[in-house]
């Protein structure tokens, strides 16, 4: 693996974590989105990420142009039951007076947001470490 692969690996990890943060922000923005007319209720999304398949063995065997890193497998809508709140005066209330809100757990979303941020920072730290290593390698034979 050449020294640019370390940058690409960390870059892919950062892309995945950024997407996770964006999806979490989308879920949090839709906490109070009720069913609008005939549309389906908003279901909270989760990001399923996986490692790029089958590449590490090839990279260890010395193959070139092997794409290592993480990738997003899918952004899945989790099927949680909606949260029913009794509000007869709401325009979207059904005939019993209940309004269906998306079943988004704010606490879970905040924790996901914090862990995505920490993972992003960890990827930045790994990238900086790889860069420091490369710059140190360039100093071989210097100082004399």
């Amino acid at each position: 693996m050449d020294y640019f692969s370390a940058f690409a690996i960390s870059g892919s990890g950062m892309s995945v974590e950024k997407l996770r943060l964006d999806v979490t922000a989308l879920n949090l923005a839709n906490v109070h989105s009720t069913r609008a007319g005939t549309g389906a209720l908003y279901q909270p999304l989760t990001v399923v990420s996986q490692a790029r398949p089958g590449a590490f063995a090839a990279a260890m065997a010395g193959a070139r142009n092997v794409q290592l890193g993480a990738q997003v497998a899918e952004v899945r809508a989790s099927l949680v039951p909606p949260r029913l709140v009794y509000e007869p005066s709401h325009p979207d209330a059904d005939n019993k007076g209940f309004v269906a809100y998306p079943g988004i757990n704010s606490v879970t979303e905040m924790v996901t947001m914090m862990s995505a941020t920490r993972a992003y920072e960890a990827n930045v730290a790994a990238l900086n470490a790889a860069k420091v290593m490369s710059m140190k390698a360039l100093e071989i034979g210097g100082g004399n």
Partner: protein
Amino acid sequence: MNIDPVGFLPAVQEIALGPLQETDAAPSTGFAGWMAKEMGAANDKIVRSDQLLQRLAMGEVDNLHQVMLSLEEAKLSFQLLVQVRNKLLEAYQDILRMQV
């Protein structure tokens, strides 16, 4: 007395040599050609990071870290070229210092 011929040995098998491993293409035009190619590659990296910066200023980039990554790669390639130049100059000066 009947001496059997040696018939139990299998036929001699040809040892097939595998194909040669693909190594890096040796510089066909020598060191000067390789150096020019690497300088072109480093220049390409700088140009690409410049384009990404312009797109970031226009707001068309969705990943800020891609811009920073390209900047770091360009800087690293350039540092490598500078070090190669330093080593070459040092070797050249060593030769110049030799007494005739």
